[in-house]
């Protein structure tokens, strides 16, 4: 037993004890982020101490401090990779794919016969394996971000389509009848009734797709990319056993993913405040 491992157990039990104290505390005024951030700090400390105490090979698991050091020294590269993969690849594909799926959903809603054709087609596209499509898209759209954008479009299209179609279908019949008694036009009914009531479903689709887009853009780079991008960096740094850089990229992806998801959830809260799921 060395001192690092003793510290490891002290911090583990200490963190545990504090969290129990906080959870038993009746005061609801405590900020909500205290428990999760305390949990995160304890995990990081334990990770650090275990890696040093057990002398774990940095290839297997680098210490958080080593990852932080690498992160701060590679900000320029990480930024270039972030722009290449997440902004150009993932975000453009996300907007295109979700936008196209949303418009398709409105078309399906208006012309019911499309449902029989387009939903199975969407299902089929979503069943295509990404590892097969990625190299093909690289040949079609080139090495740069355009092929990653295409992969993301394919990945997000179907989940977004299914959610939007379902949202538009599930309009309350008496609310629909009400619009009929006003002799409202198709567009008026769409804008004033069907889209607002479909919003909770549309946001579900957007949230699911936000993580899919992230994964799709990174994985797609494994099958051909210019010498930048998060997926490219991860695969090439793994080859050089520079696992601290791989972890730094993972960290960027996790932060970006959480922020993006949080942003969508925030917009959802603002626009669907009336839905029972948003009320406490």
């Amino acid at each position: 037993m060395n001192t690092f491992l003793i510290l490891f157990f002290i911090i583990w039990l200490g963190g545990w004890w504090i969290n129990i104290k906080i959870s038993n505390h009746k005061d609801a005024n405590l900020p909500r982020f205290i428990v999760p951030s305390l949990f995160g700090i304890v995990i990081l400390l334990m990770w650090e101490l275990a890696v040093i105490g057990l002398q774990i090979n940095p290839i297997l698991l680098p210490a958080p401090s080593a990852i932080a050091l690498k992160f701060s020294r590679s900000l320029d590269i990480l930024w270039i990779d972030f722009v290449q993969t997440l902004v150009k690849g993932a975000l453009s594909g996300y907007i295109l794919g979700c936008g196209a799926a949303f418009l398709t959903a409105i078309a399906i809603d208006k012309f019911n016969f499309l449902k029989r054709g387009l939903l199975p087609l969407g299902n089929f596209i979503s069943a295509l394996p990404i590892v097969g499509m990625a190299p093909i898209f690289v040949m079609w759209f080139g090495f740069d971000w355009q092929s990653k954008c295409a992969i993301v479009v394919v990945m997000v299209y179907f989940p977004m389509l299914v959610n939007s179609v379902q949202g538009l279908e599930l309009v309350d019949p008496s609310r629909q009848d009400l619009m009929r008694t006003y002799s409202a036009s198709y567009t008026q009914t769409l804008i004033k009734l069907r889209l607002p009531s479909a919003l909770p479903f549309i946001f579900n689709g957007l949230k699911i797709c936000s993580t899919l887009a992230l994964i799709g853009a990174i994985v797609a780079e494994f099958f051909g990319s210019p010498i930048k991008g998060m997926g490219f960096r991860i695969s090439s740094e793994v080859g050089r056993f520079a696992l601290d850089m791989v972890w730094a990229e993972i960290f960027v992806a996790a932060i970006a993913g959480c922020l993006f998801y949080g942003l969508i959830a925030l917009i959802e809260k603002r626009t669907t405040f009336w839905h029972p799921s948003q009320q406490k």
Partner: protein
Amino acid sequence: MISVSDVNLTFETNDGPVNALKNVSMEVNEGDFVSFIGPSGCGKTTLLRVIAALETPTEGRVTVNNMTPDEARKARQYGYVFQAAGLYPWRTVSGNIKLPLEIMGYSTSEKEDRTRKVIDLVELNGFEKKFPWQLSGGMQQRASIARALAFDANILLMDEPFGALDEIVRDRLNGELLNLWARTRKTICFVTHSIPEAVFLSTKIVVMSPRPGRITDIIESTLPKKRDLNIRDSREFIKIAQRVREGLKAGQSEDVF
């Protein structure tokens, strides 16, 4: 005003055709308060929906203000109040009342004027900015009535508007509805399954029976037009309620099932 003659309506369902309305004929005159009463499945809501052009009869003739129901719907001749309040939860009370006015293209000042007027009428002052889910069931239904009155159609079609409310609130809203009817001089068609409610409110009561949905009795009320809740203890009231009950019973004994 509204005339229904020899209307038949058959729904095609998976279990075969269902005869929702059979040989239904009746008249509603201007300024009438007509109640449709009967057990579930007697076609009272279907009949109201036929008048509103939300259903199309298989046979027969219906006119609303001397137009076909569909023409009347397009000319916005009636306001409809649904069983569940059917308010849009993303709109405030005044936003909900403005909804028909927006669709019908009223000017902004006109929208404000009319909204204020009907909010006064149903006594919802101070609740304009509330969302429907912040209101009690009774207040929601009042907002719903205000919405149906906003564009000043001369017919009001109401499908069990107070069905989900407790009796105390229902009594109060019944009284308020009578006041509103006296002040606005609308023609009201009102679906209910409560005998006291039908007798208290109506100038004419249409008693209906199920399988097939049909009219078993039409009662012209002898109660004075101006009435309050105490009238429910009068002999006249009890006599009419008796006749409604007999009409409902007659429908049951003719039941082929």
